[in-house]
């Protein structure tokens, strides 16, 4: 799960990461008040969307007066901001963070995430702060310093110190860096984060270190033990279908094709998308109903698939292991009764309780195109999608 910059800063500040003063604004008037309340000669008006690359796309503006902050807010609020990470449609700006300015001497990068190869949380630091770290990794990978953390000991001061000296910090700045890195690590572990990034860490002309931007992402599987983090979710930043999928514990990603698929298991779901593409079709989504798909879950999945107006045909591909084919079949029938299925439906069932599942489908009145195997299913659904006229969109 992702959260906004202002939320990340609030969380990190609670763990001792130094941040600048700032206020949230959702109207131009609030932005003006916030700038006046900060009382600094310069402040930044920052669009709060769940995507990076805001600086280059006009999502961060400097204001030298409360009136200017108000003007920036008027221009930004309600408009779609397109950055390198939002996709072509952009993301509508609904919230702004008005933050005091600071006098920058240097900009550094500090981030931490899981290194899958070692199975450990790994710190990354670089002198190239404030720019896209992926670009740094591509062009000058030697400029990214790393330190892997042993979960038995946690991050040790000597590791952070080593990074600080390698970044060229000296004197009290080294101490400040160790404090910042340690606080960031504590925040990471205490909140079950998946990514914690401060880019840039600013060294001010007064020699202080401060988090000018902050990004936190959390492990969805651990949100159950952090209700205070789960409460930070902003539904405005999510596609409605994806939010609904999450509620039913379905893994759903909307794509731009016209063949919807419902599959159990992430690998088979991707494999099904692959074979649809090989057969000349375009998948409309990735949907993994997961292990132990219940009747209700399958019905919910169906509704989500059919809510996409671009869909011209549906492929259900279930290879039962934990999932039982009869329960999946009942879910399909239930969904068909509740929402009605107006496009061709190709179903391929295999595995646990497959005969029971086929009986359930056969006993229903549903017009189903059965498929024998994966290749057969892909061929049939692509053919069916070609014959179906695009559905009228309301």
């Amino acid at each position, binding site marked *: 799960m992702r959260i906004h910059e202002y939320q990340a800063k609030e969380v990190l500040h609670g763990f001792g990461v130094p941040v600048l003063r700032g206020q949230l604004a959702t109207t131009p008037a609030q932005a003006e008040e916030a700038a006046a309340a900060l009382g600094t000669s310069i402040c930044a008006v920052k669009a709060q969307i769940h995507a990076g690359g805001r600086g280059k796309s006009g999502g961060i503006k400097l204001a030298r007066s409360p009136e200017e902050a108000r003007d920036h807010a008027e221009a930004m609020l309600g408009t779609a901001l397109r950055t390198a990470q939002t996709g072509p449609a952009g993301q509508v700006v609904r919230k702004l963070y008005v933050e005091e300015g600071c006098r920058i001497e240097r900009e550094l990068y500090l981030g931490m995430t899981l290194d899958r190869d070692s199975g450990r949380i790994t710190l990354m630091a670089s002198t190239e702060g404030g720019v896209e770290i992926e670009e740094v990794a591509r062009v000058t990978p030697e400029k990214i310093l790393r330190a892997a953390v042993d979960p038995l000991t946690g991050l040790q001061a000597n590791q952070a110190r080593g990074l600080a000296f390698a970044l060229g910090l000296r004197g009290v700045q080294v101490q400040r860096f160790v404090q910042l890195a340690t606080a960031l690590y504590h925040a990471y*572990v205490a909140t079950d984060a998946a990514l914690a990034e401060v880019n840039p860490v600013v060294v001010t002309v007064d020699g202080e270190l401060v988090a000018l931007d902050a990004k936190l992402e959390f492990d969805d599987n651990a949100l159950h033990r952090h209700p205070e983090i789960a409460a930070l979710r902003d539904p405005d930043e999510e596609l409605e279908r994806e939010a609904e999928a999450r509620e039913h514990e379905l893994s759903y990603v909307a794509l731009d094709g016209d063949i919807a698929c419902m599959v159990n298991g992430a*690998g088979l779901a991707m494999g099904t998308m692959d074979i649809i593409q090989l057969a000349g079709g375009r998948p409309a989504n990735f949907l993994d109903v997961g292990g132990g798909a219940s009747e209700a879950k399958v019905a919910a999945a169906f509704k989500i698939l059919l809510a996409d107006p671009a869909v011209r045909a549906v492929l259900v591909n279930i290879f039962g292991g934990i999932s039982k084919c009869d329960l999946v079949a009942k879910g399909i029938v239930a969904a068909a009764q509740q929402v009605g299925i107006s496009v061709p439906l190709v179903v391929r069932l295999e595995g646990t309780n497959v005969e029971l599942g086929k009986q359930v489908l056969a006993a229903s009145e549903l017009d189903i195109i059965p498929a024998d195997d994966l290749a057969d299913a892909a061929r049939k659904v692509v053919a069916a999608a070609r014959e179906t006229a695009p559905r009228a969109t309301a």
Partner: protein
Amino acid sequence: MSIFVDRNTRVLVQGITGSAGSFHAEQMLAYGTRVVAGVTPGRGGTRFSTDVPVFDTVADAVRETGANASIVFVPPAHAADSILEAAMAGIPFIIAITEGIPVLDMVKVKRFLEDRPGIRLLGPNCPGVITPGQCKIGIMPGHIHRPGSIGIVSRSGTLTYEAVKQLTDLGLGQSTAVGIGGDPVNGTDFVDCLSRFETDPQTEAIVLIGEIGGSGEEWAARYIRKNVTKPVVGFIAGRSAPPGRRMGHAGAVISGSSGTAGTKISTLRDAGVIVCESPAAIGQTMHGLLHRKKARAARGHGGSLPRLKRGRASPTVRAAGRRAARADQGTPEM
């Protein structure tokens, strides 16, 4: 022969009274697996399915029944604790089926197991392992398997079933099928399985199924290039997945260019693996490969496999192997 498990494996089921645990314990018993004990805290002293004793702790179960493998069906919030309980009780092979365990829990588990090289973890978020006709410790449908000589290792559960069914339908049985699971932090990896298949006399050829993300397939390719002489057929899921919404800067920085389907496929092909374009072509590709091998043997090539591995075969044989590999890759069975 087989790898990891056989008819003598004595299996403990952790979470045996839960809905998934009880259903699959029954399925394993029906398959012929020696399920010797179950553990559900608070249910000690009862019995599951007439003759499987249930214990409060893994230590009790091990002491009383000599269980030497454990399968974990415990819900995600408590699964890491259950894995550690099995490890502390000295169970040498732990299979974690549970999906959705918090990553930081697994970081601790992995670190704990680093100091205990005698304990193997499979998973989590995996279908388990099956040696057809002997022992099934997992959630895979048993009836699609049959004993034979193809070793399977996969990161995906249901995609493994898909491959198994294709093989069985073509008359190709399996020595052992292992699902290593799709979580970012897990136990047994591709290389562990490849090294065991390479030395297992029953295994004649290997199917490797990977997917986008991480760099396990790249490590597998490096290992195959140097150490595996048996033919390997592969599939990588996720070719059609768009680069899409990114998962954050830092993750991508760590994995660099590895992790994409394209990189994995080309790395595996460079190592001599025949990578299928279509997930429906895995069985046919393996069938064709073994058929050519038999034809060569009949023509008097001494029964050796078509050597696709560098450094071991002559340049001519290598070129022929690559041509064969390309021919296989050019014909997805749709």
